[in-house]
């Protein structure tokens, strides 16, 4: 049963059961409005989800609520009291705590030490603190052992430590920023169990996500944010995931599904016994072998940090320690440099476009040359051809719908989706035969996502071999012709995307289930 979002003009009478009331929150950054007239009421003892696309302004809003950034306009009321938060310390003082997407824990310290770090004044650092941690852990069913080293804990346990840290500091309102992004399905269920415990004890949970099924299963109320403003607050019982998604996007949804198979017998990429030793540790990659054919997309599924990045970088020749054989269309690339592999016809969309894909402080036309320094049109006979590079950048801007005033803009000035479209366009230049795409739609908006999916499908139709790494299982299942699961640096199972569910993939990714 959708209820209309409260408007800013409404008088703000302190309702007894409202833990957090945001009214008319606005925040501008250079060139963009991150938040505009945000109005949210979070009731005490509920899980309130805030959903929206990447970049809709959720994270900015939460930073405002946690005192990291001041709002340009609007008011924040906590338990009926108007507050102004200038730092996270202020937020903690009024009972607001935040669990960030990226954990902030010291691996070489114990849970106890991590929890008391910075909060030594509350219960000291000794037995009293240990007792308090145990009490909180038991009260909310977190199952935390205070004396274990954080480095020995799994991702789910680390997250619980983060939650405990927040509770230890006296938070009554807990914000979780995309908490499920790093978890596999069964860990997500555990987390939701913990969150329900918190709720039952009278705490308020603000849960930020863009995964709608999860939100629908755990939240008591859902507020949708689009383009920096609150669109609607809805009751999860009354909406479907699709309706929510359409509220988020404001239009019809794209889907990643591929067309008829274009897979051929012709092997383009053949990887044999690829290993990457790790001095003093478990190998980062171990005996990885696979083949990708002309017109085939091979998807690699795995929990982040299980060797995906290393696999891609080894194929690209960026990991000097890698052993094994890599053949591209019959040519042995094993001893070639990254530059030579690129010349041999490898297009590379790196997973971290800011670190590996772009020169942020260079104009787009120079970024067009990056990775193609040995090839026309940007470079001829060792000399830079600015005119030709600009012209070809203009072609990419047009063909790949990069939203920019022109090729002389610095890459930094573009939005993430447009940066990514530029990279895709660049890597598809000079006729590659293999495209390696690492998380190609991570952090891009829905419009760009659909466009990038289209480009990957087109690459497949045109007979490229595509290696697709993604954390988005729907994307993998929708695009791939075959999915391999990677776990602790080894390929542990091969799946046909036509008859695999995200749950099956999820359990293979954690090593819980036997490969199909």
């Amino acid at each position, binding site marked *: 049963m959708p209820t209309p979002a409260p408007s800013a003009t409404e008088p703000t009478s302190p309702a007894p059961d409202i833990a957090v009331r945001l009214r008319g929150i606005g925040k501008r950054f250079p060139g963009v409005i991150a938040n505009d007239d945000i109005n949210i009421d979070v009731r005490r003892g509920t899980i309130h989800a805030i959903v929206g*696309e990447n*970049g809709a*302004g959720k994270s900015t809003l939460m930073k405002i609520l946690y005192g990291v950034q001041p709002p340009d306009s609007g008011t924040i009321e906590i338990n009926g009291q108007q507050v102004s938060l200038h730092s996270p310390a202020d937020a903690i003082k009024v009972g607001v705590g935040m669990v960030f997407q990226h954990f902030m824990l010291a691996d070489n310290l114990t849970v106890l030490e991590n929890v008391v770090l910075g909060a030594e004044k509350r219960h000291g650092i000794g037995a009293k603190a240990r007792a308090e941690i145990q009490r909180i852990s038991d009260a909310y069913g977190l199952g935390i052992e205070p004396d274990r080293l954080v480095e020995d804990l799994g991702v789910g346990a680390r997250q619980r430590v983060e939650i405990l840290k927040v509770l230890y500091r006296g938070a009554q309102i807990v914000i979780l920023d995309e908490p499920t992004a790093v978890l596999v399905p069964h860990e997500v269920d555990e987390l939701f169990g913990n969150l329900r415990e918190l709720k039952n004890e009278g705490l308020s949970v603000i849960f930020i996500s863009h995964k709608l099924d999860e939100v629908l299963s755990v939240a008591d109320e859902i507020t949708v944010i689009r383009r920096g403003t609150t669109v609607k607050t809805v009751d999860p019982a009354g909406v479907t995931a699709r309706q929510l998604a359409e509220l988020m996007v404001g239009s019809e949804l794209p889907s990643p599904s591929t067309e008829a198979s274009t897979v051929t017998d012709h092997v383009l990429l053949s990887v044999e016994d690829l290993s990457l030793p790790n001095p003093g540790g478990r190998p980062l990659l171990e005996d990885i072998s696979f083949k990708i054919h002309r017109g085939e997309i091979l998807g690699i599924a795995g929990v982040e940090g299980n060797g995906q990045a290393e696999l891609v970088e080894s194929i690209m020749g960026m990991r000097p320690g890698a052993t094994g054989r890599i053949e591209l269309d019959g040519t042995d690339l094993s001893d070639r440099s990254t530059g030579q592999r690129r010349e041999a016809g490898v297009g590379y969309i790196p997973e971290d476009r800011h*670190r590996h894909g772009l020169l942020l402080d260079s104009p787009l036309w120079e970024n067009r040359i990056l990775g193609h320094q040995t090839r026309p049109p940007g470079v001829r006979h*060792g000399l830079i051809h600015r005119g030709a590079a600009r012209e070809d950048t203009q072609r990419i801007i047009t063909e790949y719908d990069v939203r920019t005033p022109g090729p002389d803009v610095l890459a930094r000035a573009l939005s993430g989706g447009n940066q990514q479209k530029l990279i895709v366009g660049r890597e598809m230049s000079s006729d590659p035969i293999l495209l390696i795409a690492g998380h190609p739609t991570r952090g891009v908006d829905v419009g760009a996502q659909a466009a990038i999916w289209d480009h990957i499908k087109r690459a497949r139709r045109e007979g490229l071999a595509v290696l697709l790494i993604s954390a988005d299982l729907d994307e993998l299942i929708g695009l791939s012709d075959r999915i391999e699961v990677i776990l602790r640096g080894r390929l542990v199972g091969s799946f046909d995307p036509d008859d695999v569910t995200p749950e099956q993939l999820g359990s293979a990714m954690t090593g819980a289930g036997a490969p199909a």
Partner: protein
Amino acid sequence: MIGRLTRLMLAISTPVLALVAAFAITSLVLLAAGDPVLDVWDQILSVPETRNLANIIDNATVLYLSGIAVAVGFRMNLFNIGVDGQYRVAAFTAAVVAGEAWLPGYLNTALAIVCAMAVGAIWAGIAGVLRAARGVSEVISTIMLNAIATGLVAYLLRQVAVREEGSNQIGTKQIPEGSRIPNIGLGDGTSSVYGFIIIAAVVGFAFWFVLNRTRFGFDLRATGQSTTAAVASGISVKRMTVTAMLISGAIAGLVGLPILFGDSYTYGSTFQSGLGFAGIAIALLGRNNPIGIALGALLFAYLDEQSNPLQILVGVSPDIVAITQGVIVLTVVISYEIVRRYRQRLEQQQVARALESERGEASNDKAEEVPA
């Protein structure tokens, strides 16, 4: 994409603002010390005579080469503090080679210059190889190589030196007249500047051309901006590190040569030192741009020359300009950073505006976006 006019205005206003700020701070220092502020500026800002002008240009030539040598490293995020040692080892080598005069006339000059560049390159290359192979910070290794250079040159000078007639100073053999580089007259009959200035200009042009127009320069700048992106694009960062240090060292090898071939004709114990450190300041001042470095070198040389008579005329130590020079570097670095951020914001706003007017898509500074 900022308009040409805005860009030009920003480019001009930055150094002007920095200079004004530096002069103001120097004035405060003078005031605090109870020195006559106006008299000092009156002397420093007076129009130099032709004789002084020649000195300024000569000094600037030397400083320019030093600045370019440092700038090559800077463009790749390498901090070559060792230009000071590199140019002394190189100038000494050139002096020995030219003094021995194995070849006649200008062939001898050319050989000496090549040897100087090679020795400078090798001296800097040691730091480059250590960095590429063992990850040793070039800051540390070049500083240590400076110390080694000082000792090495002093020792070798004793081995090969001849005592100048009627003097206690020792130096290498005088370069024969036919191998010296003639000075260029300034038209008043007495004042002249180093002929080496032409070589310096060629070096400046080559620096610009290689960096901005060649693939090698692109690779170098790309590596300087982002090592990770460079690696992913297929650049061998280790090779670039060594090459950049070799080039930086080769140019550093030229720094002492205008003096050697145009003035002293011998490398002695009193050969000018400290030029490499001035080069760091000048490269910063000139923002690693060949024209900017030329202006920076001229400014430093001008301040040095104009401050010389301060002691006699107004009773203030000429070292006051060292304060000015230091403050200039700081204010320039600060004001460029401010302007860079301002430009970046301006550009982001313009991109956002251009896109808004076209269709609704915007970006924020965290590279996230709002769905179209």
